[in-house]
């Protein structure tokens, strides 16, 4: 149908976006790969030399590396568990008939729009502060000692903050999926005497399966990159207790000026992210046809 003229015009219209993204993908990543094989420190740039796999070995044998990979996994899985389970529960709740549904929805999704530094600082100061925070007030009310969250359970505290930010996302997507469920099917199941649990397991959950997959995969991409929340609360500490891979690389590259080490860490992060990306692309790709 399309004439040759419109086709060449279409090619010209596509070109800027493709070229930009191609440059954006190839050039920095190529540079990272190159730097990862160099001894290159910004404090001593004159002494730059070929390092072979030294940076990778260095990263790999550093105990902080395994701790940061472990912390990354705990952070991602912890937040996923809270947001998916909580998101399903809250979506089911909001889907019920009630007064002021629209306002409830707005209140529940609000945390998603709060920028990470604000979210983290509000939780750190006003909620979790061991002397003045709301949690401390609640602890005093019950006569127990308040918890010093960021000293005693730093990673868990960050998981709570990040989960608070992402719970609305999971809820919103799962609610959207839930509302597309055919009402007649639900009624038919009810008339056949199916209880709440069996309706949930055999009807609602399978219907939401796709949305749940999407929530898990998209959140994982963003959760692998958590940074600002750690920066403003624990700064990765105490020790490396709340350092994830992103923060470890940031520390190497920006605080220790170790360009080679930071680049090697970056390549490791790419490999990790690709595992997730592979599955996400398959799930989303099906929707294109």
């Amino acid at each position, binding site marked *: *149908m399309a004439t040759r003229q*419109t*086709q060449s015009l*279409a090619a010209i*219209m*596509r070109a*800027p*976006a*493709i070229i*930009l*993204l191609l440059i954006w*993908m190839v*050039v*920095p990543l190529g540079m*990272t790969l190159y730097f990862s094989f160099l001894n290159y420190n910004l404090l001593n740039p004159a002494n730059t030399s070929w390092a072979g796999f030294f940076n990778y070995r260095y990263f790999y044998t550093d105990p902080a590396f395994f701790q940061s990979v472990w912390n990354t996994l705990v952070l991602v899985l912890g937040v996923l568990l809270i947001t998916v389970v909580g998101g399903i529960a809250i979506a089911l*709740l909001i889907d019920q*008939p*009630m007064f*002021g549904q629209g306002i*409830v*929805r707005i209140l*529940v*999704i*609000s*945390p998603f729009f*709060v*920028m990470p*530094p*604000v*979210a983290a*600082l*509000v939780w750190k*100061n*006003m909620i979790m502060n061991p002397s*003045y925070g709301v949690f401390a007030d609640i602890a005093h009310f019950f006569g127990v000692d308040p918890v010093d969250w960021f000293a005693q359970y730093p990673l868990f505290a960050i998981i709570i903050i990040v989960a*608070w930010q992402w*719970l*609305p996302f999971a809820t*919103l997507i799962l609610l*959207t999926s839930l509302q597309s469920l055919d*009402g007649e099917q*639900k009624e038919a199941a*009810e008339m056949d005497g199916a209880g709440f649990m069996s309706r949930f397991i055999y009807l609602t959950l399978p219907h939401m399966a*796709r949305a749940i997959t999407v929530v898990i995969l998209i959140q994982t991409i963003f959760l*692998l990159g958590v*940074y*600002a929340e750690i*920066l403003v609360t624990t700064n990765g500490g105490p020790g490396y207790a709340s350092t994830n891979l992103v923060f470890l690389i940031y520390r190497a*590259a*920006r605080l220790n000026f170790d*360009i080679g080490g*930071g680049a090697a860490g970056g390549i490791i992060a*790419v490999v990790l*992210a*690709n595992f997730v990306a592979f599955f996400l*692309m398959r*799930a*989303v*790709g099906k929707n*294109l046809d």
Partner: protein
Amino acid sequence: MARAVTTRTKAINTAVAWTVALVIFFPILYTIITSLKTESEAIAGFNLIPSFTIESYIAVQTQNDYFKPFMNSVILAIGSTILALIVGIPAAWAMAFSPTRRTKDILMWMLSTKMMPAVAVLVPIYLIFLRTGLMDTRIGLTVMLMLINLPIVIWMLYTYFREIPGEILEAARMDGASLWNEIVYILTPMAIPGIASTALLNIILAWNESFWTIQLTTTNAAPLTAFIASFSSPQGLFWAKLSAASTLAIAPILIMGWFSQKQLVRGLTFGAVK
């Protein structure tokens, strides 16, 4: 649904849902309340009734020049959105209306660029910004934000454009309209809502982006994310002032977000959930 619901069930639902919603919303609510307290009230223990003073709002402006990072946020969010639309609209348009055999592959590849962890290119981007003098400039950061959101913009526009019926196009072509005429007179009016939704989502994402905005700025180009993050030390900013700065930082986006719930689902799931 035709199901009859007793008032009692509805009342219970309402009570439970409102309780959950208020607990989730509480940190935001408490930030707003604290912003209206005096500094001594702010650390005087749990108290939901402030003295409704706006002294903290005045203080963040007079002491910390709040207007500067706020304007940087506005410029970065809107600037990167306009850039992304300029590049994204023609691309999405071409792929939606003149698809080739490779269109699907191109779209998937664009999506894959979004999977690249930002930290993987921290080192080269940081060095490039240092060497070229882009560090701490609004123009450099605007381009960065445009690049990281471009895949989402193109995808979202593409899913909207695909919903425009092709018959209208064919009718126009039969009447001898050129592609340019089709775009300007027929399709653009139909595409405006989709473009507006895409712009809205992009502004939200750019406003809240907190990796590059912190890494690539110091003072001149620092938007609100970097400004607020710089107050992470306890002695940095008192709570009432921090709350005032935070309230102002999240208010515009919170309100925009409330109006864009549906688009958000679509944009963030790359059209996989509608």
